């Protein structure tokens, strides 16, 4: 069963004081199945964040429809933003509790934080943590919210290589333990290949989907060599997405 059906006819920003009217998205449609991990890749400025904001319900000003089959009907998608967006005046625990709402389970929060190596930081303030740790807290917050859909907007950008790799591994292991549908925006094809069941390619603005590629190889076997082979295959068989390679 489809978890999420996106069908956006048009999303544009009206003419402002310093800019012309701008159409960010046009005729963009796709579906995500339950517990699928999908990466969305596109050139910068193509409207990836706009798309996530529309799906998250932060921006309701568009033509089209977003339908999600959420088993928790009142719970919106959880959202991992590009910056951690934690409340600096609340502790790690308080930040997570505030996002979950009244009926939160302390055991689940502790377990999730432990999984992400943050057991000792329950009562730390975000400003006392490194950026990588803050990102993990924001990941924990998203996973503790009982939502079937998780939106992620380049959550590991500007982390150094080793820390980003570790963060990706943590994300995958957390996802295996608490499965849900993930829509993960990135501009890095290597990252997408390591994570995804499926990769959607977006065009320049006004963006729509120009390719949709399924990856069947198990994640454990996606070595550097396989990544190169994957890109080589795209180069020969998928002319529309050459700019991403």
């Amino acid at each position: 069963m489809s978890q999420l059906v996106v069908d956006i006819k048009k999303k544009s920003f009206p003419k402002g004081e310093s800019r012309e009217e701008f159409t960010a998205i046009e005729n963009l449609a796709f579906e995500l199945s339950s517990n699928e991990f999908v990466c969305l890749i596109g050139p910068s400025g193509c409207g990836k964040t706009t798309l996530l904001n529309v799906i998250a319900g932060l921006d309701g000003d568009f033509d089209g429809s977003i339908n999600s089959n959420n088993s928790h009907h009142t719970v919106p998608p959880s959202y991992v933003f590009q910056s951690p967006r934690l409340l600096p005046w609340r502790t790690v625990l308080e930040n997570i509790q505030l996002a979950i709402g009244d009926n939160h389970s302390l055991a689940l929060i502790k377990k999730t934080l432990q999984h992400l190596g943050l057991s000792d930081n329950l009562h730390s303030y975000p400003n006392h943590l490194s950026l990588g740790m803050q990102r993990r807290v924001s990941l924990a917050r998203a996973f503790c919210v009982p939502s079937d859909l998780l939106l992620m907007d380049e959550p590991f950008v500007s982390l150094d290589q080793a820390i980003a790799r570790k963060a990706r591994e943590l994300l995958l292991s957390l996802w295996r333990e608490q499965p849900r549908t993930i829509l993960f925006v990135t501009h890095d094809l290597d990252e997408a290949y390591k994570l995804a069941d499926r990769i959607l390619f977006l065009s320049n603005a006004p963006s729509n989907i120009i390719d949709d590629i399924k990856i069947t190889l198990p994640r454990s076997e996606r070595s550097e060599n396989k990544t190169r082979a994957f890109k080589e295959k795209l180069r020969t068989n998928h002319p529309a997405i050459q700019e991403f390679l």
Partner: protein
Amino acid sequence: MPRSSFLNSTFSLGLLLLIWQLTAFIINSPVLPSPMLVFNNLIDAIQTGELLQHLGITLYRLTISFFLAMFLGTAIGLILGQHKSLNVFFDSWLIILLNVPALVTIILCYIWFGLVETAAIIAVVVNKLPNVIVTIREGARDLDNQLMEMAKAYQFSRYKTLFHVILPQLYPYIMASARTGLALIWKIVLVVEMLGRSDGMGFQIHLFFQLFDITSIMAYTVSFIIVIQLIEVAILKPLDQRSQRWK
């Protein structure tokens, strides 16, 4: 306070007292009583209970008008800071309010509402309110949009958004207007009391003025400055430190 800065301010206060004492000695006139005379007068006034009674009633007026002005000012400033069109509409009202002399508001309040307690409190609040609004409005314009989006994405209730996302961001602005507010309000309360009340520090000082009792005027002023300093040290400073823990 570190030891050196404590010593420093003690020394500077001592120097001020010394200058006062010397000037009083040189002038040698009832117009400028010496610190010792003022201190003795202060002790007398405390012992008769007169000072504490008037100080109490003034502090009561100060407290009520302070909290009213802070509460209303924060609410209005927050609304104006967040709604551009409302702000444009009411901006001229604010400028007028900011520029009406305190004396005029006080007299008008007494004429409109009579020489009653409510009029006194309203007069003080109206005087302080525009300053609070302007300060809080600046803060409300600068609210972090990313955090507001996060609150919306995670469906924070209005209450949660206000108390966990918005007010902590406004905290420095609230503290700033509380500090300047305290200093401004107590000065206005005294004028209000002088013009239309039959008790309180302002009334007493006016009485001493008519009796040309300068020593008492200075004793009352010193007592009030001490109380305001105590509020700063015992309430505002600890509040400030508590709220800085996360930084």
